[in-house]
């Protein structure tokens, strides 16, 4: 194609394009394999007996008597309380987080006042602060300064509430607090693109700041609530460091799933990969399903919000 010069040869262009497009599809396929192989290998290994794991290539499906559900069953037994704890903690944390952040973004975006930029700057900087910079005080805060688990301990007498559920509350609030900056930034970028005329119309109708939020902004932010829910639920469910700092041990009753997973299938004789992969798959399942169903929303949250 390069040496065409001035004599315009349509055939060589068509051929060239075809080759080029074919090349693109080859690359696309190679990278599909690249991104899926670790996951596919993990799932295949989860379905194999130990003997089959040692014998067969890791990415091949189990054959004949190499197939077993024993590892998955055993893993489910060990992982399920962690999955339940994580869901119990992550669902309310996500909802509280996004409601607060939506309000904050509204107050900082659609209502104009001087000095807004300073407050906003603190929110944006908060997105990037490494959690390591706050975890040493965090444990002290929840044990010495604000022992909320003790304060709420009478709640443990309620039906369906176990004492260890209360131990999840500090973790939940921690996730809410540190999730506010990023979700506020996400909502803000959405509210900034919202037509100003709608807000102006509300003002002309004599609506108050609260009425404008309730009647105009909230109904219009429904798709954004979807985006940030998918994004933030995934983040909170997947998070590890806060669980490690506030709960600590994988054997604690209130241990979250990310805390339990790195301990499964480990023994002095080495790692039981069949069991470990089964547990990894089960642990990932809630967010994996959510992602497959709402990949677009997840991508939307990621590209404005960051990792």
């Amino acid at each position: 194609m390069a040496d065409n010069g001035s004599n315009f040869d349509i055939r060589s262009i068509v051929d060239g394009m075809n080759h080029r497009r074919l090349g693109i599809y080859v690359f696309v396929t190679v990278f599909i394999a690249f991104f899926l192989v670790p996951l596919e290998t993990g799932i295949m290994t989860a379905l194999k007996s130990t003997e089959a794991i040692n014998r067969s290539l890791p990415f091949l499906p189990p054959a004949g008597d190499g197939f077993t559900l024993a590892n998955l069953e055993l893993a489910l037994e060990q992982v399920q309380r962690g999955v339940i704890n994580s869901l119990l903690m992550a669902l309310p944390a996500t909802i509280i987080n996004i409601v607060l952040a939506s309000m904050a973004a509204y107050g900082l975006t659609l209502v104009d006042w001087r000095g807004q930029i300073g407050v906003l700057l603190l929110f944006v900087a908060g997105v990037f602060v490494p959690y390591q910079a706050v975890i040493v005080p965090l444990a002290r805060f929840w044990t010495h300064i604000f022992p909320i688990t003790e304060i709420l301990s009478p709640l443990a007498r309620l039906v369906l509430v176990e004492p260890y559920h209360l131990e999840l509350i500090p973790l939940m609030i921690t996730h809410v607090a540190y999730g506010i900056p990023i979700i506020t930034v996400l909502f803000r970028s959405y509210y900034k693109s919202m037509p100003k005329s709608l807000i102006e119309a509300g003002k002309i109708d004599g609506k108050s700041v609260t009425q404008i939020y309730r009647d105009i902004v909230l109904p219009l932010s429904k798709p954004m609530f979807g985006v940030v829910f998918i994004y933030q639920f995934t983040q909170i469910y997947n998070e590890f460091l806060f669980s490690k700092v506030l709960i600590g041990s994988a054997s604690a009753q209130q241990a979250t799933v990310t805390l339990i997973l790195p301990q499964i299938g480990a023994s002095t004789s080495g790692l039981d990969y069949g069991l470990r992969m089964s547990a990894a798959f089960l642990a990932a399942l809630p967010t994996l399903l959510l992602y497959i169903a709402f990949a677009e929303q997840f991508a939307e949250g990621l590209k404005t919000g960051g990792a």
Partner: protein
Amino acid sequence: MGTNETTGPSATEEGVGWQTKFRYVLNSDFVRSAPFWAVPFAIMAVAVYGGIGYNFAISLTDNNGTIEPASFSNLDFEMYVQALSDPNVIQAATHNLILLVSFTAICLVFGLFLAIMLDRQIRYKETVQMIYLLPMSLSFVVTAQLWLWMYDTDSGIINELLGLLSLGPIDFIGNPEIALWAIIFALIWQFSGYTMVVYLAGLQSIPSSQFEAGMIDGARTLRIYLRVIIPQLKASSVSAAVVLMVFALKAFTFLYAMTGRYFPPQGTDILATLMVREAWQYNNWAYSAAIATLLLLMALGVIAPYLYYQYREGSL
């Protein structure tokens, strides 16, 4: 406030009365918007900035041993002096730097490549994008397990494939010389979908007429991308780079989950893992807090220019 109406006449005599001023303040957008942002702001500020301050205060003490209210009687920078001359800290910071530079650079280039590839009107684009981004939806705890198995010396897939070429086996995670690179590779696998999505959004905002104009001029595709398209992706590159660099500083979970202990694979210790280990394994709280502050300063070195850039561009 209803009674304010009666003060009308006197207000006109002496300019504006204080009640009117007060009512004006109450009706200002600042006060009326406060109920919306003040509560989330307070929670966030206590958690983030209160936490940073408290952490700094602890770092000035000599606190170690059991967790108890720190005594703030004897404050000095001793822990910082100790940290800056600790070979472990220096080594961890070096690993951080290697991770930061190579991980960020490769993720950006690879993600840009994927984005340009998907931007060429290929079929099933949504599905392909979903597959490329899938690792980002997984917890680091999970992906660490997947890569532990990929890298396994005896029957991991990479060594099986190397075996077919009669190479290896290579102990990727056990060999301190290459463990960090093996982990960087795994993290690139997880993050390049993210950079791809950021670049795709940037590419879509560039009018296709620019690309067509280049084609008519007879410029080659590569040249069009290098001269016309990529310079316009500066904003995407900057925001993705900041996210990746900050991640490279704080990456803890993936390393921890590789071993399930406070000691990550040998040769991969970074400040984040060192700091958590000093605190929760050895209970050197003050020392750990000092390392955390150093880590925060490094992150600030990345964030502050970025925020300034955003502020100047008016895109904050």
